[in-house]
């Protein structure tokens, strides 16, 4: 456990990459893979292990979601001294790139959301994927075709591909992709290249909309189905074998681009079951903005924030429920 000097600096750089990824959800950042280790199980690639090591230690619990979870889990607990815990209780859930869609959906779907009093207890899901790529800002996919940089061109081709493929589940074989993604030109033609989906994020940290391309979207569907009420929720960190990292904090709303029915991450929908929360008497102070908002469905922390700039829905909520009781004469309070 004693970190050598280089280890320590690699960790520091990795943390800044991941922090940037969290501060600007949907943008692609990078971490250097952990150094080679002969006993590392096949389920874990070096980049995912690096991100796990960044956060997981003896003070937290983790769960590995994989068909052969035992090998990876005992490796991680001997390396980090972290304790294993059941999926619903774990602070960190590790989903290797090779985990099938069913396993991944279960892991994301059942991870702990925290409580309204302690939302920070919500799980961080560290998920491997075969491939992550940037999608330039704006309408992205199409504009970038004439981009001179290889990277842009790559993203564009991936984005187009994603549109054609549509709703196909992440079928990519991690193995094939890790071989293929080493070079940066004409990758789309290579055998084993996974189908890429473009995901758009909005919310705090995002100026307008951030887009990225990823080979798997099982997490996205599972996340949308959770129906967490902000501030409860989970964080998802996607890591590809090249060390590219994208973070999707709970404050972001995510949608699949090109999907006819955007899967927005609805957090404060009326049918959200508040009784499941620890707090029974939740005031849903953002609810007025849900119901009155012209945006209707895409309700989450982000849109509540937008609305507050104009109408301060929170204040209305308070005036309607609490303030009136205490200072009923004061009509001035919005």
């Amino acid at each position, binding site marked *: 456990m004693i*970190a050598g*000097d280089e280890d*320590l*600096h690699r*960790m*520091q*750089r990795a*943390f*800044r990459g991941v*922090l940037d990824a*969290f*501060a*600007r959800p949907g943008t692609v950042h990078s971490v250097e893979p952990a150094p080679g280790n002969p006993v590392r199980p096949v389920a874990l690639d070096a980049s995912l292990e690096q991100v796990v090591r*960044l*956060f997981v*230690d*003896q*003070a937290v619990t983790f769960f590995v979601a994989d068909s052969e979870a035992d090998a990876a889990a005992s490796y991680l607990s001997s390396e980090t001294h972290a304790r294993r815990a059941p999926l619903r209780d774990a602070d960190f859930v590790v989903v290797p790139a090779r985990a099938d869609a069913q396993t991944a959906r279960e892991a994301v779907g059942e991870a702990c959301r925290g*409580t*309204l*009093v*302690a*939302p*920070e207890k*919500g799980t961080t899901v560290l998920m491997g994927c075969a491939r992550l790529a940037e999608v330039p800002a704006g309408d992205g996919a199409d504009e970038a075709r004439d981009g001179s940089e290889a990277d842009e061109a790559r993203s564009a081709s991936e984005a187009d591909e994603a549109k054609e493929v549509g709703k196909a589940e992440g079928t990519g074989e991690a193995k094939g992709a890790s071989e293929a993604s080493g070079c940066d030109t004409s990758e789309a033609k290579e055998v084993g290249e996974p189908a890429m989906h473009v995901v758009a994020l909005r919310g*705090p*940290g*995002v*100026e307008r909309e951030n887009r990225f391309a990823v080979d798997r979207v099982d997490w996205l569907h599972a996340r949308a189905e959770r129906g967490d009420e*902000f*501030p409860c929720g989970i*964080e998802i960190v996607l890591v590809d074998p090249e060390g590219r990292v994208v973070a999707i*904090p*709970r*404050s972001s709303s995510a949608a699949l681009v090109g999907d006819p029915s955007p899967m927005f991450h609805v957090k404060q929908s009326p049918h959200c079951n508040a009784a499941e929360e620890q*707090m029974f*008497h*939740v*005031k849903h*102070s*953002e609810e007025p903005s849900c119901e009155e908002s012209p945006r209707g469905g895409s309700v989450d*922390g*982000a849109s*509540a*924030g*937008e*609305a*507050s*700039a104009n109408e301060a*829905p*929170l*204040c209305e909520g*308070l005036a309607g429920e*609490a*303030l009136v009781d*205490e*200072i009923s004469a*004061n009509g*001035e*309070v919005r």
Partner: protein
Amino acid sequence: MQQHYNYAFFDEASKREIRRAIIKGVSIPGYQVPFASREMPIGRGWGTGGLQITLSLIGRSDVLKVIDQGSDDSVNAVNIKKLVADTTDVEVTEATEEATLIQSRHRIPERPLRADQILVLQVPTPEPLRSFEPREAVTRRLHAEADYTGAWLELFDQIVRHGTTTTGADHPVLVNGRYVMAPSPIPRFDNLKLHQADHLTLLGAGREKKIYAVPPHTDVAPLDFEDYPFSVERFDGKRCRLCGAEGVYLDELVDEATGETYHQCNDTAFCAARRAAREDAPSEGSWEGGRHA
């Protein structure tokens, strides 16, 4: 660099713990994440929260700037800079635009921060509801329920008594439409700099053991009323005696010899850069003018 400490003073386990708290703070804008505040070689209440964040972030490629109430040269800033520089090998600077990491007490620099810069604010009292509710368990529940009646009533009470809100600094803000947050005792003048900023802001309270954050491009709205809108400190017709700047946050000082009051930029680096840019720097200026407490 002193070799008998780990890089950046902390052991790696402490950094991990603080990093976990920072990540949750960024993911839940404005929410105060509890963390295991460490004993530091400076006293609690002297910037240990900010210092712990800085030490968990800092690395070889960073350039550090530390400000105390706008000044790069006051005791608190100098000592924090010394500690960090002694336990790492980072460069320190006074120029805002050169820094990648800016730790600050009670000010946000005049020069707008860029996306590649991180602002770390030292926080004495992270709980905006503490003045009317001393129990932590209760304030946590109030935040959970977004019950901010008390925060509004407090401002309302000030208006009833004084005709205006009387928050000099640390005016509460609503972050991302959800959490009411103490922005640390920055003047109201600086509150608006947090709204839809390009940079990430991390806030650390060492004594109160809380870390929280405002991500870039996040709505930050000062609490106010329709008929008593939020207003910032105004310095109409006043300008800095040294650099002539207007529209910046000014300190009002008294020349003890003549009894005359004058104004000076609070952000010393901003002022110094303006004067350096001017060929004809004023000859009167020995630049250590008294600063008010």
